[in-house]
């Protein structure tokens, strides 16, 4: 679906006409990411991150396929084969650093993409399915990243695998059976390493498939925009190509510069030295931490230190950690405010930034050792995280008085500042965006 004023694909060349009649793939591309997709004219640079996430996935798939040509998934040789890639394989060091840092870049971009959605209310009707599919992609990304980190078979790989599969061991009654089933043994070994490699290779393609669904569901209502006001006419949109291909291209350039700086000047900045020690089942590293992108969730896991109502602390931590993501699936129904954009919700805006700081604090504590004061800070920060979604957002939707919305995207653009009240807006009370 698209807006009625969307440009139509009209192939000029006889060959393209011939193809279009038999397999309208160029037409599909034209309508999806070409001139045939009308996009709100007021998107800011925060709307770059979807395309950047796609680029990051592409980098991961390409470098990953190449690395798999040199890697061997066997406990005896896995660590050595990674060192072989680093020292012997032509350009191997570059490809492996690109893959390892590419994962970090992927998560940075996706976290910005998610917080963009949180601020501008992109998860609200009619785009709930876009949000839900995005969360599915996020979960798949985390599974893929975790299994990828196990493959070098260093100390952090091994102990990370043990701790994370241990999470499933916390499930009452069937936990230990599930853990043994996941690992194919009583501790991480060849069986686990091989299946992780197999799934690590598979899941990125599953992610690519879900991304197609994500974009498909986005293109039904069309992209949201910084005002949160729906598109009302042709004057509110511009064609995706060339306007946003150019804007995204610029963003991609900036992304690649930052990526290259990390890659060439600080390739181990976000890694752990312990992972350059071969896996040793008899010695636990003094300080086990996952990769930085899991730290906020790791902090929530560790925030539970005492049993509550007879439920073991370990199980509570696991429930809270998974709950912190499952919770986001309910967000479109927890935040009932008809106003999407945080720009028109003064109180929401303040709480949004508190949430950002809260997640950063959780991240910091998740990377810190499991001792005071970090445990207590994690407990407070984890409590706020849940309170934000379960208490603050539903209450704000009821109590907050939003600012008046602009009459249309064009009106907001022409006034020069999208966040302020507009004299031409005749609505005295804030109203829901009108187009549905």
């Amino acid at each position, binding site marked *: 679906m698209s807006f009625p004023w969307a440009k139509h694909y009209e192939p000029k060349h006889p060959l393209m006409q011939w193809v279009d009649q038999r397999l309208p793939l160029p037409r599909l591309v034209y309508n999806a990411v070409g001139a045939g997709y009308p996009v709100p004219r007021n998107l800011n640079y925060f709307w770059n991150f979807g395309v950047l996430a796609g680029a990051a996935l592409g980098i991961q798939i390409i470098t990953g396929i190449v690395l798999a040509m040199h890697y061997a998934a066997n406990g005896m040789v896995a660590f050595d084969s990674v060192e072989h890639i680093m020292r012997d394989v032509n350009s191997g060091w570059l490809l492996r650093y690109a893959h390892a840092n590419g994962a970090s870049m992927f998560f940075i971009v996706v976290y910005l993409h998610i917080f963009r959605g949180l601020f501008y209310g992109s998860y609200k009707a009619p785009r709930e399915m876009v949000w839900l599919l995005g969360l599915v992609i996020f979960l798949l990304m985390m599974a893929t990243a975790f299994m990828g980190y196990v493959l070098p078979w260093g100390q952090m790989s091994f*102990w990370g695998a*043990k*701790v994370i*599969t*241990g*999470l499933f*061991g916390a499930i009452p009654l069937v936990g230990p059976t599930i853990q*043994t*089933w*996941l690992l*194919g*043994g*009583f*501790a991480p*070994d060849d*069986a686990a390493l091989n*299946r992780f490699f197999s799934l690590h290779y598979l899941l990125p393609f599953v992610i690519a498939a879900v991304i197609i669904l994500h974009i498909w569901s986005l293109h039904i209502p069309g992209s949201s925009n910084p005002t949160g006001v729906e598109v009302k006419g042709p004057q509110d949109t511009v064609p995706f190509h060339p306007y946003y291909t150019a804007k995204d291209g610029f963003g991609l350039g900036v992304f690649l510069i930052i990526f290259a700086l990390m890659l060439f000047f600080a390739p181990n900045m976000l890694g752990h030295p312990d992972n350059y020690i071969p896996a040793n*089942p*008899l*010695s*636990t590293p*003094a*300080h*086990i931490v996952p990769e930085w992108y899991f730290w906020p969730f790791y902090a929530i896991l*560790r925030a*539970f*230190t005492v*049993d509550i109502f007879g439920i*073991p*602390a*370990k*199980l509570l*931590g696991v429930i809270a950690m998974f709950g912190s993501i499952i919770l986001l699936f309910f967000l479109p129904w927890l935040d009932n405010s008809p106003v999407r954009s945080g720009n028109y919700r003064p109180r929401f805006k303040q709480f949004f930034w508190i949430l950002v700081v809260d997640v950063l604090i959780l991240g910091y504590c998740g990377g810190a050792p*499991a*001792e005071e004061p970090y445990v207590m800070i994690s407990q407070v920060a984890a409590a706020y995280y849940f309170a934000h979604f379960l208490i603050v957002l539903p209450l704000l939707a009821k109590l907050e008085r939003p600012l008046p919305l602009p009459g249309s995207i064009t009106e907001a653009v022409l006034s020069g500042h999208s966040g302020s009240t507009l004299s031409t807006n005749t609505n005295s009370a804030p109203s829901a965006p009108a187009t549905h």
Partner: protein
Amino acid sequence: MVTGEHAVAPQEELPGGEGARRRDFINIAAVSVAGVGAATVLYPLITQMNPSADVLALASIDVDISAIAEGQAIKTIFRKQPLFIRHLTKKEIAEAEKVPLSELRDPQTLTERTKEGHKQWLITMGVCTHLGCVPLGAGEGEARGVFGGYFCPCHGSSYDTAARIRKGPAPKNLEVPEYSFTSDTVVKVG
């Protein structure tokens, strides 16, 4: 196939809806067979992930404990996981025995966790019951935590001198594997 199509006439032409019932029966039967078939195919796909025979093969091990002096402990490997064998001192035994069971998260006495006549030999898995790290305390000079037993560096669980959980997130005591004394100095684990 062809004969089947001829045999079952369109349902409205048959008296009493008999044809419809026959069709339903065939439909349910076919879907059921397909369902059972799918489940049968699914089973090997799922169970292949369980530990294979070589992993399961009960490698029982014999450990000579004659060289472990009082107060010392050793780490060895049992089923690819660390095993702690600790020679408790009289003081450690006394400490473990004076703790009231009501204070314990996973109540067990030292006697229940050791073999009769071998109370000084504490044999447990070296796998923290929280998330599976190897606790410190078996090696020379390693931290033993506030209760003098084992200390898990991952999330700060402390075990006492009977390897019972006393503090931190772990829910259970360190697991005591199946073992027996084949002589006074040799233990058969597994």
